[in-house]
């Protein structure tokens, strides 16, 4: 249930984000940055939902993780801003925040999905989990 509510919430928030991106403070950098974030956010959720509906939970989890990383942009924006403002000033910091708030998050998740502790990537790890407990996803 939380996944469905989350998906609807993300699509609504992404639509709002896309509409607001055109007037984003910081100029074209943030217009394109926040706009791309909104599109990527919606895309990740759509792919995650489609994968879940097909029963492909490995793919679903990977895309849901990417969506969660983009959701977390709201938090990282507020972590980056005071730090960068102290270094380069508010305007210069804010002009780059439209990208800094989400690109590192996404890069981190991509690394996490591909890391290979003890010769096994996170994606393989997730796949093993699904195979080990097939009854967990069987319809009621």
């Amino acid at each position: 249930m939380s996944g469905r509510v989350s998906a609807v919430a993300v699509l609504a928030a992404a639509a709002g984000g896309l509409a607001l991106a055109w007037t984003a403070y910081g100029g074209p950098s943030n217009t394109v940055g926040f706009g791309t974030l909104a599109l990527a956010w919606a895309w990740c959720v759509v792919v995650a939902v489609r994968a879940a509906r097909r029963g492909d939970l490995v793919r679903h989890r990977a895309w849901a993780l990417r969506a969660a990383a983009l959701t977390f942009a709201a938090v990282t924006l507020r972590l980056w801003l005071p730090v960068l403002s102290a270094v380069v000033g508010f305007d210069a910091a804010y002009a780059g925040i439209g990208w800094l708030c989400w690109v590192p998050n996404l890069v981190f998740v991509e690394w996490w999905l591909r890391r290979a502790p003890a010769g096994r990537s996170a994606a393989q790890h997730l796949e093993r989990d699904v195979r080990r407990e097939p009854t967990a996803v069987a319809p009621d």
Partner: protein
Amino acid sequence: MTMMLKTTRVVGAVLALAVVAYALTYLRPGMPSGFADQLHVYRSRQLWFLLHIGGGAVALALAPSSCGRVGGRGCRTPRTARSCAAFTG
């Protein structure tokens, strides 16, 4: 094309776009006016603003408990397994 190469290209394209957009911000004449003016913009777009903030808050609150949770538990707990079964079934 391997997944790694695809990812590298996507990340490269995003970074290139970011650099170009950031550069354009400083090449265009005059920076945007003060941040206080931005609040007026948000007031004039209240519906979109509320949709964005409201949806984002719900998504942020639910992200840790959804199927794709970090740590990979997801559908393995009884409660989320029922949810996933309903979703995929």
